[in-house]
């Protein structure tokens, strides 16, 4: 995060962004009155570049780029503490989830590792029908250029006989892959 010195609000104000966030999340962002309870309740505030309440504030001010490029939205674990305690009945966690999707769509993802892990995860699902934990981790580590991540755990897991060397492939792999394909087709159709 870069420290914001002066925000020329009108220059970067994007009214359409506010509307799209509200539509995607089904939440009315203007209800937020900045009590800060979401940030008070969020266990991840300390790793965020902007606390959740500031993310909400930035949306209210239509600051699309700052929001979608923020690390906060990718560090949110969807633990729902913010949603549960919001006095304005805003599903804050849902807003964060919608921001992640928008940030991908607009190619503004700041934390590529997390996106990478998610992508590899879904690729595993698309290929095997289930997640292949043992296979997923090395591939992710390699792509993320951190070849030794979690390697300390391998011997432990091996000892407990929990490491499967082969993926469990389901019979309905094609059906699962079909879901991915139909989804893609669906979006293409609606864009057109």
């Amino acid at each position: 995060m870069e420290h914001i010195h002066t925000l020329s609000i009108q220059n970067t104000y994007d009214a359409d962004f506010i509307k799209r966030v509200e539509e995607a999340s089904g939440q009315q962002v203007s209800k937020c009155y900045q009590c800060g309870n979401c940030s008070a309740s969020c266990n991840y505030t300390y790793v965020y570049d902007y606390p959740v309440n500031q993310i909400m504030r930035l949306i209210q001010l239509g600051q699309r780029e700052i929001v979608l490029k923020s690390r906060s939205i990718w560090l949110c674990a969807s633990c729902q503490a913010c949603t549960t305690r919001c006095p304005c009945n805003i599903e804050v966690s849902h807003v964060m989830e919608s921001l992640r999707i928008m940030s991908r769509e607009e190619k503004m993802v700041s934390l590529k590792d997390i996106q990478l892990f998610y992508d590899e995860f879904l690729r595993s699902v698309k290929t095997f029908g289930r997640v292949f934990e043992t296979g997923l981790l090395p591939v992710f580590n390699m792509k993320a250029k951190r070849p030794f991540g979690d390697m300390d755990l391998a011997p432990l897991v091996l000892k407990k006989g929990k490491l499967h060397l082969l993926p469990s492939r389901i019979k309905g792999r094609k059906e699962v892959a079909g879901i991915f394909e139909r989804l893609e087709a669906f979006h293409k159709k609606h864009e057109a």
Partner: protein
Amino acid sequence: MRIGVFVCQCGTNIAGTVDTQEVARRAGNLPDVAYATSYMYTCSEPGQQEIQRAIREKNLQGVVVAACSPRMHEPTFRRAVERAGLNRFMFEMANIREHVSWINNDREANTRKAAELVEMAVAKLRFNQPLFSSQISVNKRVMVIGGGVAGIQAALDCSDGGLDVVLVERKSSIGGKMAQLDKTFPTVDCSSCILGPKMVDVVQKDNITLHAASEVESISGYVGNFTVEVRKKATYVDWTACTGCGACIEKCPSRKVPDVFNENLANARAINIPFPQAIPKKATINRDYCLHFTKGKCGTCQKVCPTGAVNYEMQDEIVTEQVGAIIVATGYDLFDASVYGEYGGGRYADVISGIQYERILSASGPFGGHIKRPSDGKEPKDIVFIACVGSRDASVGRPYCSGVCCMYIAKQAILTRDHLPDTRVWVFYMDIRAPGKNYDEFVRRAQEEYGVQYIRGRVGKVYPKGDRMVVQGNDTLLGVQVEVEADLVVLATGIEASAGARELAEKLRISYDQYGFYMESHPKLRPVETNTAGVYLAGVCQGPKDIPSSVAMGSAAAAKVQALFSRDTIETNPQVALVNERVCISCGKCIQVCPFGAIQWKELRGGIRKAEVLPSVCQGCGLCNATCPPKAIQLQHATDNQILAEVNALCA
């Protein structure tokens, strides 16, 4: 009929989005309309004179004013046409401001709509008949329901004005919430010192009848002549004999009774006087804890009572009071903090409510005015106040501001620093709401002179760690999460409508909002009246407010009652149902449905009976009219023909 139509421009309020000239022009083409014009401010004195002049010069028999809501100015214009010699019911209003000009900017559509509303009003007016009031006598006694500071003020003011007052209080002593407070903001004067003398006054006034430990059972009648049944609950002590000496309390063996007055921070006895300054200072037995009632084997209080006042056989008693007006001052409840699971109120002994802290601060409280925490009696070194617990929170159904918490937090913070200069005080708040004389200065003093730390942000969670509590919050001004360890956490619980408010409202036939606060007749101009004539509001039952406002409202309600009682009779509303005996088929359905018992059988010759309306009892709801199959019973001023004329103006 010769009808005059006056289209008000209301400055630009109406003329801004409605072509009032055009509305007047179209009105001029309507049948029976002899005169139509547009005027800048029809409700102003010259505006009213213009109407009166037109009535005389144009020989008008009926008047339509197209202006604001009839709920606003119908009485004004009725008086105006009356002064020009017309019957005041030969007048109709078309609401082209609240229902037209203020809710849409489409000038053309608005103009058309306004013209049609005028057309409907003219159509109705053509069926209007002159109606005349009759006089009914007024019983110049007033009942005040609720003996908190608002009710006490209302009762004393009425009493000073020479009226007989009946004061009904649910608890065994008057005083309300204010009696529980230690000090009052922003002057930090002692609450019981300023309230006490007023409470004493109540019993010393000859013209005030006090029913404590009593509740309103039922209400019937109408303005000037209400009949109220009051249930005097069995206290098991004959209050005419009880001297309040306290001998019974001292000897009572049942010692683990929650002390409600002290917000359960201490124990009371099964026979009890809630606090030393109680009015009336009379003992009451709590059946749930009294060994005589629970085990059937104690009789100590009866034995020790020097006046033999204890009576275990006592039953509830119903007394009937006849009054001409009612002031409702039933106060409020405090939000139940245990709704917020994340704050641990009700689960952790050292997480308490603001009113509990008030009792802790009070010299007559459970700890004699020494600040100790409930769990272990230790003096707290860090105290955290959390604002807006049950206020401004839609997720718990309380989106409104309680209006007093910011101030009582500041007061309690100052008192804390006064009592314990070494104790640190932290306040988590969202915004400071301190509009009032010397209020904001008071909050500033808490920060500037008393060093109270204010942290802007709602608290996420409170949890125990060792023998302290951790308050996990957020400083939104810094944008960081903060933690404060505290020995005592005070939740500034907000105001909510009294638990029985809705039930009482139904007995009184007054309205309440979605939170249970009573609705005033007009939010600005009729703040103490209700929509039921003769019933007035005082204090927090109408909405959150502080002590000065409650007292002012008590006085205002008393003034309203005195104005009502300044005459010996009041005019009845002639907009009541009327039976056309020739058409009545004697089916009795109107009698069956009337909510007020205002219709009865009238015997004619030959054993034939017809329905008959008692005009002083009829409230004018028209249910009978809608029910009557041949429409023999017609609600005056809202007859079938009048409503049909409006429908026909639109749909025929």
